[in-house]
């Protein structure tokens, strides 16, 4: 009876630690998944030298023209170069539910953008028409922020006095674009009174040609900053490293606490079964098998607890969150994700805790003096 309660309490401790581990890491995994899928290996992104994000980059039309000569740029089916100049601005839109304002990115694009970013697909309504105050909204943005459904009107523009109609919703494979609003570049440029553009995305023919193209743009001919989209989004996700680091420290401390809780329970288990152990030894069970039995007992508790904790964390998985990137100053919507990697980490943690907690008790169990233990009973 006492051992049932004690095992149960230890079980709860370990499952809570696993739960915390999985939830903390799922934040980082969600953000990374959203950013990682944003980059295409054959796409390169050009920013002003020194800029760290599209939102702080300013390119003049002249600089864009210099890029047309870039070697290796792919052609569209109609023979046009797959170069997409894009303008990034932002607006404040209230979140659904809390109503707190969020900085949402608006991207002004030309029709070419849909070929350079083929993952962007309109899933409801239709695409915007250039020259008309119309916009399409990413799926994540339309779910997270209020008033962004097909047919709703949204006030944009530098003075917030231009009423755009949302005419469609797009998906982009769960990537960062889905947190944005897209409209025609010229329309956006006039609404926001911008003569410049922010960035240029281009599709290169093959991954092998990418380094040559990067060198060309970074070199004296263009003198701008080019990186692969993968690199750009990788850098944006550097924030997640901090979360992982912080989580690791917290989990490490909690893990040690769990080891002590397990050790406590296992010591008690050994104490209360000295007679039983002595009996088993008399019957011929080896020291090793006695020790192993206690180790397995601890592992079983911890692994069951791990399963329970992971199951609990699945309840959080898929929760929609968003965060303000400190590089772009726009919010990025993401979903908490309990990935196989996280599950594996959790299992490793549980096995480690179970093993470390059981080492001393199991050793003690294997050393129980037979005669004394039998006599005392």
């Amino acid at each position, binding site marked *: 009876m*006492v051992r049932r*309660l*004690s095992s149960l309490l230890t079980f709860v401790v370990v499952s809570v630690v696993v739960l915390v581990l999985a939830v903390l890491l799922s934040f980082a995994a969600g953000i990374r998944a959203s950013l990682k899928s944003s980059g295409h290996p054959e796409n390169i992104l050009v920013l002003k030298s020194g800029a760290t994000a599209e939102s702080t980059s300013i390119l003049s039309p002249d600089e864009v023209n210099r890029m047309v000569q870039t070697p290796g740029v792919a052609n569209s089916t109609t023979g046009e170069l797959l170069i997409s100049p894009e303008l990034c601005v932002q*607006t404040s839109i209230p979140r659904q539910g809390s109503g707190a304002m969020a*900085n949402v990115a608006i991207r002004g694009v030309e029709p070419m953008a849909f070929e350079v970013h083929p993952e962007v697909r309109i899933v409801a309504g239709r695409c915007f028409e250039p020259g008309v105050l119309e916009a399409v909204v990413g799926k994540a943005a339309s779910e997270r922020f209020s008033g962004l459904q097909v047919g709703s009107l949204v006030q944009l523009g530098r003075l917030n006095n231009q009423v755009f109609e949302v005419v469609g919703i797009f998906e982009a494979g769960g990537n960062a674009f889905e947190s944005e609003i897209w409209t025609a570049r010229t329309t956006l440029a006039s609404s926001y009174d911008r003569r410049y553009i922010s960035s240029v995305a281009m599709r290169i023919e093959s991954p092998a040609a990418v380094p040559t193209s990067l060198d060309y743009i970074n070199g004296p001919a263009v003198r701008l900053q080019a990186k692969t989209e993968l690199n750009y989004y990788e850098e944006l996700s550097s924030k997640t490293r901090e979360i992982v680091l912080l989580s690791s420290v917290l989990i490490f401390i*909690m893990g040690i606490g769990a080891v002590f*809780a397990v050790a406590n329970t296992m010591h008690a288990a050994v104490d209360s079964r000295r007679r039983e152990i002595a009996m088993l030894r008399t019957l011929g069970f080896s020291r090793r098998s006695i020790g192993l039995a206690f180790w397995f007992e601890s592992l079983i508790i911890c692994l069951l607890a791990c399963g329970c904790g992971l199951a609990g964390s699945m309840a959080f998985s898929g929760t929609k969150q968003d965060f303000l990137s400190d590089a772009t100053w726009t919010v990025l919507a993401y979903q908490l994700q309990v990935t196989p990697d996280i599950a594996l980490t959790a299992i490793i943690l549980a096995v480690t805790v179970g093993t470390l907690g059981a080492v001393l008790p199991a050793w003690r169990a294997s050393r129980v003096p037979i005669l004394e233990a039998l006599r005392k009973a």
Partner: protein
Amino acid sequence: MRLKLLYLLRNLLRNPRRSLLTCAAVGLPVMIYVLSMSVVDGVERFLDNSMTQLRLAVTQKTSIINPLPAGYRKKIAALDPSSQRIIAVCGMSWIGGRIEGDPRPLSTLAVDRDAFISAFPEFQLSEDEQAAWMRDRRAIILGRSTARQFGWQVGDRITLIPSLPPYSPMEFHVISTAEKATDPSTNWCHHAYWDEIKKQSGYPAEIVGFLFIKCATRQDMDYYRVAIDDFFANYSDATKTQDEKAFMNEFITQQFNLPRNLSILSAVTVFVAIMAAGNTMSMNFRDRFSELATMKALGFGRWTLFSQVQGESLLLCLLGGAVGAFVPYWAFNYSPLRNFTVPLIQQLEVTMVVCLQALLISAGVGVIAAAWPAIQAWRLSVVTALRNQE
């Protein structure tokens, strides 16, 4: 009383291994509690300071990303011709910054030289520092944790690359490391110097990111919060005015909502501590079942037994809690850890208040963990308890 305490201690020492393990299993979650609450506390102290400073933040109505004309400064100041109600109007721009070849981002604000000292009195700059700030166009006041992190001292010359166009390097002279500032990481430099850098590359310079208004009283603050927006309502750039706390809170809640998430984490760790301590107490109770019954048979009252079980748990958890609370306190205030240049460590301030809170919570953990065994001890029926013994 002394005798009783001695008895409790003796009881704990009867199974030193178990007591030690429990101490650790309680102490470590308490440590996490202390660390996470220190972060939350830091944010709250920061916000509370924002409130007491009676400052308003004026941003462009549509988005903070849109700048305001620098001329708004004079127009706002003119709303109070007597200068009795508006003490200072300080234009500010975020320029971020980093140093060559180092990916670590900095947070730097360019501010109006003449308004800064009166708008931010909590910096408590010395007269020498004030003089240096007014005299030197390239003066920079570093956040103290930033200064420690990069090993910069007063008198150093440093070169930062701003995070905004034209990204031209800016040389600064460190004149202070702002020991009294509430925000330990932000750096402050002259807006005029930033304007100059922008003008050199042909970027528009007559703009500011936002304006901070230092008011004389709470009433003035409430008045101008509305009055400023009304005044600019028909300008091409309408404004949004809010108090500093609300302004700052927008950033904090958008970035992971750290205070809320860490509070949840703290609650979880306290729960873990209760489970761990409860485990030990139930084991102790079980071991001493017959002993307690014997004591009762000898005439010790229910209260004595109840308080004995409770007292033991309380003592154990307080011991664990004390270790868990004061190790980080020591580590973050007196140990060599202070010299590590990791921003997380540098920015964290573990205060006595949080440690005492943690101790109080440990006591609570002790009481809750022993609740069930203590009630059982209270209800203990001597006859059944003794009969069950073999």
